[in-house]
């Protein structure tokens, strides 16, 4: 029975049962699980990457050696770069899942809101971070693409001084340009906001809720957002102040 205001214009047609992961993903609650789980994958990568960056403070040899070491994870059991590629594909899949679910959910929400909005709206609990998740997400996505082009693919138009394998020199060549410094600052701001809401929100989405530790969920998100932002920004600031040179 379709009552007034249903989001489905056409009545649901009888469908044969699909396998449960697909059926689960078809629901918004299922998509929120995907948002949360892929978000955790992303958070894992973000922390791992941040720790790796700190090798920049040990100097050129150490950073280049660390970067080369990433290609050699799993050697000699696995061929060179094999596990690295598994990791990359996993991250790509997580990113794709996160994006698709986010896109589908915001469409569903937009539809649910209807045509007329409030003239006056006074938010009590929603905060800047929670209300800008879509935009901080887009900033982070654009940053990832630019960052890869700058320091992984070495696209000439973006980083003309790029030399493959010279991680340390590439990093400095890129960050010595002040617009690049600003890009990092913006992206880190967006990331911190995104994590501050996301790393709290994910607990609710997957139903991890218990009076014994609920207050830690917010603290966890705050700490993670702070640690990640500070950890990442040490490198551009290190270059700015000549500590990394």
């Amino acid at each position, binding site marked *: 029975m379709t009552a007034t205001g249903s989001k489905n214009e056409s009545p649901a047609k009888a469908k044969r049962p699909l396998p449960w992961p697909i*059926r689960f993903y078809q*629901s918004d609650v299922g998509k*929120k699980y995907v948002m949360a789980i892929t978000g955790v994958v992303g958070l894992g990568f973000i922390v791992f990457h941040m720790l790796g960056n700190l090798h920049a403070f040990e100097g050129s040899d150490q950073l280049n050696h660390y970067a080369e070491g990433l290609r050699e994870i799993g050697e000699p059991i696995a061929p060179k770069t094999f596990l690295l590629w598994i990791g990359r594909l996993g991250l790509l899949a997580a990113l794709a899942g996160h994006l698709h679910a986010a896109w589908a959910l915001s469409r*569903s929400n937009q539809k649910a809101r209807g045509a007329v909005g409030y003239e006056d709206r006074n938010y009590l609990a929603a905060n800047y971070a929670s209300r800008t998740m879509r935009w901080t997400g887009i900033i982070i996505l654009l940053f990832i693409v630019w960052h890869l082009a700058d320091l992984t693919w070495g696209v000439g138009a973006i980083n003309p001084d790029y030399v493959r394998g010279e991680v340390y020199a590439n990093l400095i060549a890129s960050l010595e340009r002040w617009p690049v410094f600003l890009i990092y600052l913006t992206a880190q701001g967006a990331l911190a906001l995104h994590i501050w809401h996301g790393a709290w929100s994910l607990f609710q989405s997957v139903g*991890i809720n218990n009076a014994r530790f609920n207050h830690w969920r917010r603290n966890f998100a705050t700490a993670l957002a702070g640690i990640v932002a500070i950890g990442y920004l040490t490198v551009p600031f290190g270059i700015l102040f000549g500590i990394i040179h």
Partner: protein
Amino acid sequence: MDLKLRVWRQGGAAGPGGFKEYDAKGISEEASFLEMLDIVNEELTMAGEEPIAFDHDCREGICGTCGLMINGQPHGPQQGTATCQLHMRKFNNGDTIVIEPWRALAFPVIKDLVVDRSAFDRIVEAGGYISVDTGSAPDANLTPVPKEAVDAAFDAAACIGCGACVAACPNSAAQLFTAAKIGHLNLLPQGQPERLTRTAAMVDTMEEYFGSCTNHGECESACPQGISLDYIAQMNRDYLKAQLADLRRSGQK
């Protein structure tokens, strides 16, 4: 006190709507918000104008019929209070008060400030009950229930279905309502036999009409009954279980 009202007027479901301004003069601080509207309506009627249509019934905060967006807050500036329990002492002389209906695709305006909330009924019909054979009443305390579970179920059962959670949600999500209606049954022994099918059916029905939760927490702060976001987490967990469990073996299919 004297107030200026900016009220959404809409002749009918199809009709275009718009804001109209009214003066409310000489309103007592002791008046409730709805009494203030009654006074304005009386004057409108005397002047031969159409009174402002708004929903109300019990006027004691228990039925969930009332519900207005007042100055951008569902049920107005006093938290934990339904519109009918809001009093004019919460406002100051000379204030302009903006009054709007709940906004959501699933809550179409019927007239002025009255919206159709029957999408909530569809959610409850999908599983917000327990199936029991009727007969003579069971002995009291036949089914032991821990006090904590009773309290938690009762907190969820306090939901009056006013729709403030949907009105407050930037996504027009009905998670808090649905989670409360699921929660008060799923927390009690009597609710266990249908726990998973109930959760799945009610969530699926909810999603036909409403948006999804992005954990803003607006619903919780708008709820006149102070229902907690914790029930939403419980609903999400039960929804996953409903997907994973062998429903036939657990007797739920």
